[in-house]
């Protein structure tokens, strides 16, 4: 039973991490890059605005950070919960 609790705790920690990451993922692309762009139009970035920068550069950079952050955090979580590969 305790092993079951442990793996449940591991899974819910993972799901929470995924949820947070996907909120950031959606915020930079669908948010800053598209829907919220009009609200950010006051912030100018080299001849265009912040929303344009997020749509063509920024979101890609954030995606990169997200994947590496998730991999690093999960590999630590594996060890904390004792489910890492032998």
């Amino acid at each position: 039973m305790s092993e079951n609790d442990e793996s449940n705790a591991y899974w819910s920690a993972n799901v929470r991490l995924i949820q947070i990451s996907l909120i950031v993922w959606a915020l930079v692309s669908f948010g800053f890059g598209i829907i919220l762009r009009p609200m950010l139009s006051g912030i100018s970035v080299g001849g265009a605005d912040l929303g344009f920068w997020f749509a063509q550069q920024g979101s890609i950079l954030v995606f990169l950070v997200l994947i590496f952050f998730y991999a690093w955090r999960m590999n630590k979580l594996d060890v904390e919960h004792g489910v890492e590969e032998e």
Partner: protein
Amino acid sequence: MDQFTLNLLFVGASFALYIGIAIWARAGSTSEFYAAGRGVHPVTNGMATAADWMSAASFISMAGLIAFTGYDNSSFLMGWTGGYVLLALLLAPYLRKFGKFTVSEFIGDRFYSPTARLVAVICLLVASITYVIGQMQGVGIAFGRFLEIDAFWGLLIGACVVFAYAVFGGMKGVTYTQVAQYCVLITAYTIPAVFISLQLTGTPIPALGLFGEHTASGEPLLAKLDAIVTDLGFKEYTAAHGSTINMVLFTLSLMIGTAGLPHVIMRFFTVPKVSDARWSAGWTLVFIALLYLTAPAVGAMARLNISDLMWPNGTGGEAVSVEQIETDPEYAWMATWQKTGLLDWEDKNGDGKIQYYNDANADLQAKAAEKGWQGNELTKFNRDILVLANPEIASLPGWVIGLVAAGGLAAALSTAAGLLLAISSAVSHDLLKGQLTPNMSERNELLAARISMAAAIVVAVLLGLNPPGFAAQTVALAFGLAAASIFPALMMGIFSTRINNSGAVAGMLAGLVVTLLYIFLHKGWFFIPDTNSFTDADPLLGPVKSTSFGAIGALVNFIVAYVVSGMTKETPEHIKALVASVRVPRGAGAAVDGH
């Protein structure tokens, strides 16, 4: 040495390199090509996956679509990179833990149903064949240009080369060949971009140059570009013009589709460990991002250069003369591209000059009436030629042009061949051997693989004669199909134990059918012209274009799967145990063949 010989030299040398590496790497190991990724470092695997992934759509087509539309086509950039986040967080580690080789095997086992596996194979085939059509378009254009023939003949010659390349066998499986292809491709894409960025902005990094200062005018580059294109009656480059809903759905379709494409997912099955699957997705995106961060700069700068060439005295001055186009070496690229039938101009008003402007714009029509212009005289500019023509437009040295030709072919051929291999293994391995004729001999399996490869390429060429859009748009349709069918089944299979066999089958079928229907209604049945009932200019569902429907198809898939699962028998205990084991990394062995 003339440009034609130089192009042949570069293309020939790059091919010799790939074949050389394939032979060298093969001599070392005879292990089956599925396992090519095993024991390979995540960085190397990431580079190979990036080459596999970046095709004619990314290399040849995408920057051109951005150049002529501007901000609205940012969806390609966000969509084709954001999908890797979904792949890394929602699929890759679990599919690696599951430890089989194909996507349809996972679906068949998780949903304990040969029917589910069969439906997955059908979804995979539909998406992959649509994808190949887009690749063949790119191959046709690249061959048309560097052999200086019509794009139609380029397509036929390209088809033969792709076929030979795919049949050559393990080519695709050899990770190091793909590493070489990635190097050729990224060098070919970056070098001209750096040159052009230096010319226009003095910054060697194109992604920074895009937001930098246009040296000649002292204004920000994008502001300058906005001013020029609006002067010519085109839509402002940096502004949004399309529907926001459509842009969100289109971006989402490309993202979900990326995470549902079998030939990409397959690469994560064979990394040594679950933790490596997580890193590997990150490294893949690093190598993809190198091209994707450069692409918007390539598009914007090319648009600026083209406008400058057509209006050498500024948009207020006189247009370029026909005589200059025909004699000035700076304009020589126009004559070469005219031979492919993808670029054309016509002096409609006979004033000896070629006026390039938007003749559908009311302000410009007034100006045209005043100046005696009789319509836009740059009559044809296929978006797909932009990247290949870019170094010539910017008058870069001949070797850069040859390098770009080699890079474009590397991108198109590697992906086309990879897709053909995925199609043939789906038919021979999953469909025939796994379902219909389990006792088939290995010789016959190989024969069936070859025949299905040939059939797939014939279908792709036939459908590619009347492509439903520019290469990247055709490919976007394939992503919509993958998004609506494969991704939801995989995700639900991992994150929910509630979804059972009937739910998964009904969901996949519903997603595939509605999406295919929506595409055919807008693009014509089997893409045959004039058989469509709606157009993307005025779509059936409000602002939703056919390329954006994949996200809705995926939603239909999720809903149908939940409803049907709720009405039918619960998932058996041993499958719940399978799902539980997929969720933890511990105990992951090497991937094994299902047969």
